[in-house]
């Protein structure tokens, strides 16, 4: 009896056109667009040699030596282009250089915008001014020590001991893919909604027939949920496989655990839809609109549209990230990438499992006693 129901449930899910479109085509289309858009953005945000225009107003051997030193390091800080003032301004306005260094008696900086790169150039000029200050102090106190002082001032030191957390893939844009998988998972609510609709006599003809049949409600409900979870799991596996092996997105972490998290997340989506579908007597279309709107709001809060929103919420309202099921799903992928131990990943998986249990139990409670006679 159960197997018969399960088989028909699977057939039914596959015949729902939206299921195939939403859950299989959606990540393929959006994932490809994401890959095209974000493919190389992260590398642009990493530190790279800063191009500057250098205008020589009057000879200053010290300044020129200083700039050459900055340009000839192993990983040079500057890429100077010596030119005249007019051309320098043109280069600045065209965005080909980040600033103009005017070398005369002292060094002056001209930039066209504010931001971290111009601030770094300011630090550079301040460093040159520091040389002037220290030399002045040295000449006033102990001119004989000038060489030693200058050597100390320009010595290469490695003062920073790097104790940074190790991320397998530090690319912050990979979180958009985490959120895409989370969105596909939560959109599994559509199949969950169908389970609920197809089991209520006042929602669909199929529900009416099922309610009249001799099959116990527990059996066709369990078969429906299991069938939806299986179908959703297939779509989650396809989604992860496409992103990982076709688009070659580096998720970081153990891939098998990523699949596990994705499958559980899909079940969470199904349970969520089942829960929404079980509430009240609203028509299927209305419930579907509610489920999609809630899902999109949750996706937004998880960072699907604004990548930094999760970070902002972590400081302003951390409880949102803790309770938002979509954020929990994307966090589980993030934890696999960021943390070599599985402590946080396990806590996220436990949270997802609790959500599945809570939504399913609530759904069952709401559909309880909804017999033909009582609707």
């Amino acid at each position, binding site marked *: 009896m159960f197997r018969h129901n399960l088989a028909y449930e699977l057939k039914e899910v596959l015949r729902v056109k939206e299921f195939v479109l939403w859950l299989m085509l959606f990540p393929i289309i959006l994932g490809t667009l994401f890959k095209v858009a974000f493919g*190389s953005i992260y590398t642009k945000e990493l530190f790279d040699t800063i191009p500057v225009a250098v205008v020589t107003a009057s000879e200053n051997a010290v300044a020129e030596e200083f700039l050459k030193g900055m340009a000839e390091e192993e990983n040079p800080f500057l890429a100077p282009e010596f030119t005249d003032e007019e051309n320098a301004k043109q280069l600045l306005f065209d965005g080909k250089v980040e600033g103009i260094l005017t070398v005369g008696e002292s060094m002056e900086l001209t930039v066209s915008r504010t*931001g971290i790169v*111009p*601030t770094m150039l*300011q630090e550079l000029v301040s460093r040159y001014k*520091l040389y002037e200050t220290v030399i002045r102090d040295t000449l006033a106190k102990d001119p004989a020590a000038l060489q030693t002082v200058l050597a100390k001032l320009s010595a290469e*030191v490695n003062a920073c001991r790097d104790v940074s957390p190790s991320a397998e893939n530090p690319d912050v844009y990979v979180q958009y893919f985490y959120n895409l998988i989370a969105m596909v998972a939560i959109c599994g609510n559509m199949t969950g909604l169908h389970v609920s609709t197809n089991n209520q006599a006042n929602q669909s003809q199929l529900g009416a027939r099922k309610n009249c049949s001799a099959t116990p409600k527990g059996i066709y409900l369990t078969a429906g949920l299991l069938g939806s979870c299986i179908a959703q799991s297939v779509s989650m596996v396809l989604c992860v496989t496409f992103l990982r092996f076709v688009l070659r997105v580096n998720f970081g972490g153990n891939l098998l655990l990523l699949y596990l998290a994705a499958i559980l997340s899909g079940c969470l989506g199904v349970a969520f839809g089942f829960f929404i579908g079980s509430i009240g007597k609203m028509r299927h279309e209305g419930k579907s609109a*509610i489920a999609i709107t809630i899902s999109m709001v949750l996706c*937004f809060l998880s960072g699907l549209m604004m990548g930094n929103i999760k*970070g902002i919420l972590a400081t302003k309202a951390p409880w949102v990230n803790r309770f938002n099921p979509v954020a929990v799903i994307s966090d589980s992928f993030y934890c696999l990438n960021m943390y070599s131990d599985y402590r946080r990943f396990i806590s996220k998986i436990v949270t997802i499992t609790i959500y599945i249990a809570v939504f399913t139990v609530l759904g069952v409670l709401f559909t309880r006693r909804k017999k033909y006679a009582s609707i």
Partner: protein
Amino acid sequence: MQVFKAFLRVLKSKFGSAVIYIVLFFLVGLLMTKNGSDESVWEKSKMDLVIEDLDDTPESRALTEYISKGNRIVPAFADEDDLTDALYYTTVDYAVTIPKGFAERLASGETEGIFECRNIHVSYAATNMQMQLEKFVNTVAAYQALGQTTQEASQAALAALSDEAEVTLLQKDTGEKKGENSELLTFFRYMPYILLSVIMNTLCPAMVAMNRKDFRYRTNCSGIRPQSYTLQIFGASALYVGAIWAVFVMAGGVINSTMYSGRLWLAVANALLFALFSAVLAIFVSEFSPGDNIVNILTQVSTLGMCFLCGVFIDQSLLGSGVLSAAKFLPAYWYVRVIRMLSGDIPFEASEVAVALGIEAGFVAVFVLLAILVRRARYTSAVSRRVMA
């Protein structure tokens, strides 16, 4: 006006989800626009730092004072994982721990790995912070070489390092100060997403309902002329879209108390054109009579795809040239381009703004024609086929 009234009644029933989107966007708009800043005067870029001073000596305090200057100090996290998250999401740019024994090691000239540093992205901010830390160590060492004690050298270094270079901010004369209206323009920049989402999610189902066979057949056998029917539908859609647009424009007024002035009216016109585009796209899609879920797919794919490709969510300057070339075939690219010109990100050229607005208007016209074409092909031919049969 029967069709007009009926259409508005159907729209009203679909408005619930739109309200959620509008309220959410307004709240997020408020949140985002607080980050806007005046870029017409030079201001050092502030970094978000976590500084943990375990040494608590005059030397470590001098260092803390130096690196705190001009930056935002974030309180230390009780949980190491929270710090990792903050570094990943860049709510913290860099974390420095000054370990116990820092002053002693500085005094003995032992500078290798004197700080514990944490960062995840090898960003400009992280590199800058590392440079500042090493600059402090070098300066202290230089003053020590002058015979000063470590404590005196730290103070001398602090004084010497406080002398910051002046910066001249040179901007092309565009008549508009860069960043002057950044708050409002940030609000406008994100508007394509919400306009498309709200309008497609509400207008499409309403149009699909109007295109339902029973409704269409009743209308066809009534005395209403097809032209009048189409005009009433377009009129009601225009009224609805106009109302949505007006709500957002007024919301912009709430965000920026000085209201709209000068070139900012171009941003308002730009938003109107995009709202119209959203409406005609919705009408075009609904001519294929998709189900609610298909509408959702198309809405999400078109809004998210267009917004990511065209630089709504991610700055156009970060997108690759290939992506931008493809984006030129989408109206959101031209929308964002106008906003970037108004905000001073790229030079303002009146002719280029006109071209961008013209292209957006062109997209509107093309989709109006496509919608009419599809309508005629689908519905007129269906009627003809039945008549022939």
